[in-house]
């Protein structure tokens, strides 16, 4: 069993972001090297000062908002600060959204990643996609 994990996050839906953050944080504090790639609709939620609420897909997502569930952004922070995780912004999504990597939350690696490097990084790891 590999102790390396790659997490591809492209959804902007609350349940997907929450599940990606839960899996990433627990894996990262359990001895796994975790590389997280934020692309497509997920990236906008990681801008500094962003207060947008991710829309829910269904019943559980609606309940998540009313319960004291840890915020997905804070779980990703725990993955980096308490565990062995690196979070990379997708260079294409940054270009499309027209935001600089320096405008992202401080725990995100300020070095945008392209698909070639992400594929290379993940070639010997378990890959999860959200």
């Amino acid at each position, binding site marked *: 069993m590999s102790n390396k994990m790659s997490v591809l996050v492209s959804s902007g839906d609350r349940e997907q972001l929450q599940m990606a953050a*839960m899996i990433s*944080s*627990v894996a990262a*504090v*359990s*001895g796994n090297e975790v590389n997280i790639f934020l692309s497509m609709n997920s990236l906008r939620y990681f801008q500094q000062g962003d207060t947008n609420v991710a829309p829910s897909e269904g019943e559980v997502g609606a309940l998540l908002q009313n*319960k*004291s*569930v*840890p915020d997905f952004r804070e*779980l990703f922070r*725990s993955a980096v600060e*308490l*565990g062995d995780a690196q979070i990379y912004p997708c260079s294409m999504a940054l270009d499309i959204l027209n935001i600089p990597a320096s405008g992202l939350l401080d725990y995100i690696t300020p070095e945008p990643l392209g698909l070639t490097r992400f594929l290379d990084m993940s070639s010997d790891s378990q890959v999860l996609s959200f």
Partner: protein
Amino acid sequence: MSDRIVVDAKNTYCPGPLMELIAGMKQAAVGDELEVLATDKGSANDIPEWIKKVGHQVLDSFDENGVWHVIVRKEK
């Protein structure tokens, strides 16, 4: 041994209590005991699994009036 460190993680959900425990463990010394308080039963199950996996020790785990107490010792 120093006093037991209490990590009050009541009223949050998995994996919040686990993350709060790990943050507490980072500050603790080897041999210290930590007591996590959680109202989320999933965490009461998950925390002992994590403790065993990474090589610490669960000293006790019990439910008291709807609050789970998981007592662990930092081993390394």
